């Protein structure tokens, strides 16, 4: 057996394990474990796309959660405000489309008297069940969210073109913060801190493998998120191996040199922003439909720091490692919640787990800057060239 193939084989085994896990696991806490894994996949998409942006392309953006939020809010607003009916309500803003009417609900924000203000609910009361109202398809919302993420990614990518390093980090942080403040202030439209509710990912249930799944079942969203993760990892791997990856890495090492060598730095820099933002937005949109509520608190810096920490601990320059790191750490964070007792002292882990997490992040950065998982993968992959490379590196580092 070739040592070099071990990481690939381990990867395949892991994918297989995740694919069969929902079928073989049957303990009482099944929904909870499934939930952690779905959340883990969600963070894995964010961490791996962020590692492409930050680790590969060297664009240390702190706006990734902002793009996630754009995806989530796009689909949330889309499904919250738009409906199709066969007859006009004569109460809402509406446009005829073919033989249907597109209904746009009024933004009413959060009040105690929602019922008397919601024009569609009033119309439904009048119709008394005689008219079928069609909500917008969830997949269309997710697609729109992804697109919107791409559009904003393009915009931000263009705006940050002249910025590097610290300035880029601060600019993207600013973008994210403006977005959060806007969402939480425009209560009439976004429902602010209360969060906006979304329909289920599979609102009518779904039949998979000859089995009918209810909308509350965890298995369909598990596979939806899992396949989204695999798709993202696939795209990232393909990109990294193609010319794109090479150029993008050249960007990171020395942008001016890359430009001098004829790399169209503008195009690649913007492109990497667009692609990674779309991934974040897609993950956000899907997660929002799974959790069924999105609020501006998802955009706070703490959430962004979780993604950054997951990617760094996994391996910021290796997106598979970043994804694995995210899944492992999400599990760890949930697991560490359990308080324990040392003699008479009860250690409340609710907060301490985050201290542990922070220390782990710092130690990883300091002593294993490539992350905790990457060195293992590297060991197998480059085992045979290791000595040579090390010798070269040492020679380079000696002045």
């Amino acid at each position, binding site marked *: 057996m070739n040592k070099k193939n071990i990481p690939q084989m381990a990867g395949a085994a892991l994918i297989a*394990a995740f694919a069969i896990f929902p079928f073989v696991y049957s303990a*009482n806490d099944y929904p909870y474990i499934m939930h952690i894994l779905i959340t883990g996949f969600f963070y894995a998409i964010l961490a791996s796309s962020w590692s492409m942006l930050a680790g590969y392309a060297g664009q240390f953006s702190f706006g990734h959660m902002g793009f996630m939020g754009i995806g989530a809010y796009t689909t949330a607003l889309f499904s919250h405000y738009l409906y199709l009916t066969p007859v006009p309500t004569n109460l809402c803003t509406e446009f005829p489309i073919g033989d249907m009417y597109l209904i746009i609900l009024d933004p009413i924000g*959060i009040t*105690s008297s929602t019922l008397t203000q919601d024009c569609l609910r009033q119309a439904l009361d009048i119709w008394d069940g005689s008219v079928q109202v069609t909500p917008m398809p969830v997949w269309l919302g997710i697609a729109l969210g992804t697109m919107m993420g791409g559009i904003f990614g393009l915009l931000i990518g263009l705006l940050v073109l002249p910025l590097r390093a610290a300035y880029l980090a601060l600019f993207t942080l600013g973008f994210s913060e403006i977005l959060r403040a806007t969402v939480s202030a425009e*209560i009439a439209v976004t*429902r*602010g801190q*209360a969060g906006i509710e979304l329909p289920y990912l599979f609102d009518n249930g779904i039949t998979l493998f000859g089995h009918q799944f209810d909308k509350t079942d965890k298995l369909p969203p598990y596979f939806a998120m899992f396949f989204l993760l695999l798709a993202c990892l696939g795209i990232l791997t393909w990109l990294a191996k193609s010319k794109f990856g090479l150029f993008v890495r050249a960007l990171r090492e020395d942008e001016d040199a890359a430009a001098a060598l004829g790399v169209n730095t503008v195009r690649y820099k913007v492109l990497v922003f667009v692609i990674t933002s779309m991934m974040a937005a897609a993950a956000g949109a899907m997660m929002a439909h799974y959790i069924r509520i999105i609020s501006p*608190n998802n955009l706070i810096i703490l959430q962004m720091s979780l993604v950054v920490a997951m990617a760094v601990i996994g391996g910021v320059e290796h997106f598979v490692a970043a994804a694995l790191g995210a899944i492992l750490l999400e599990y760890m964070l949930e697991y560490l919640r359990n308080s324990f007792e040392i003699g008479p002292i009860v250690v409340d882990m609710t907060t301490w787990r985050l201290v542990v997490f922070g220390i782990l992040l710092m130690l990883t950065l300091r002593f294993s800057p490539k992350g905790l998982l990457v060195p*293992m993968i590297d060991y197998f992959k480059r085992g045979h060239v290791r000595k040579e490379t090390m010798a070269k590196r040492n020679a380079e580092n000696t002045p």
Partner: protein
Amino acid sequence: MKKALVSVAAVAVAIAFSGSAAIAAKCPIKIGGLAPLSAPGAVGGGEAMRDAMLFAERDINAAGGVLGCKVKVVIADTEGLPEKASAIMEKLITQDGVVAIGGGYHSSVGVAAKDVSNARGIPTVFAETWNDTITGDKQQYIFRIAPLSSWASATLWKAALRVPNVKKVAIVTENTDYGIPAAEETSKGLAKNGVKSVIFGVDIGTQDFSGIIQRVKAEKPDYIIVLNTGEAGYNFAQQAADAGIGPQGIPFQAGQVALESKAWWQNVPDGNYAFVQRIGTPVSTWNAKAKKLNEDYKAKTGKGAIESYALEAYDSISILAQAINEAKSTDGAKIVIALENISHDGTLGRIYFPYGSKKDPSVDGKGDEWWHQWPDPAMTMIQYQKEGELSTESVIIWPDKYKTGPAIYVKK
């Protein structure tokens, strides 16, 4: 290095299969307790509720437990995030195997959490979530002992109307689903009685209010109502006091956080004469249970007195324990029937739920929000009239039923 890979694989397997050992045992009977214990939730409130719920566990067990078992209250941290709520509910129900859930602080968390417990058939008694929609959806498993937002707002504007010569009221609110509906209801109630009002919304966690205070001042209000939770409630009050429109400058109703007397006097040294809305009957009418809890709570936390939301949290757990005993089962549907028929002597008074599957609220011409809702948590307006006094000992100025003294309206 190979070992490392093996360990990775081992971790992966461990992820896959850990927890399978955690199967709900018959004893002890577990009850979940929701409380925000990390940011961005209101951690201060969450910790108070946690302590109270653990006292409830102790007292229930001291009284012989439930169905011959000990009771264990499993505290779960909601982080104040609606999106965390569903995860935490799943964990409580499926991993910890709780049979019922109490507590709950943030309204948005309650709105998200109620659907999970209802779908899984776990009776839930919310302690401090005011938003009307929580009971307004008439879900089978959802109960509430906190006051309704629309109704609590009524006490706000009724108290405001008592201020002499009141023409204009400034309402400062956090932009959450607790603050905004309450502010709007209050504003509507005032408008019906010919009093103008201006609503100022602020982001939660705002520290520096100086700009907005100048605006409030320029409106020349006769009364100020603050609907900020957490430290923002203190920050606004003290900064308003510095600018001359604090509790000693004009009639001023502080946020709920003012009930935590020790913290209030430390954070708002110029906070005398503030009005505060308080839930629960006056201390003088407290039963032995409430008094004992207050003493224990003070001893444990070092606070001046127990807060109303801690009392609510305590009652939400004890009422569930009584319901399980009366249902003689941990089956959710049976507990719900027991709750609908319950008469519980809690620290807040006698708790019961008149409306539910036996009797729809519409029979009495009431709105859906009265479903599974305790109809009379006592709502009072107190006023600090001596610097450093405890909220439990201050003068109750409203309503007349509980009144212990006249209000002092400071002159501008």
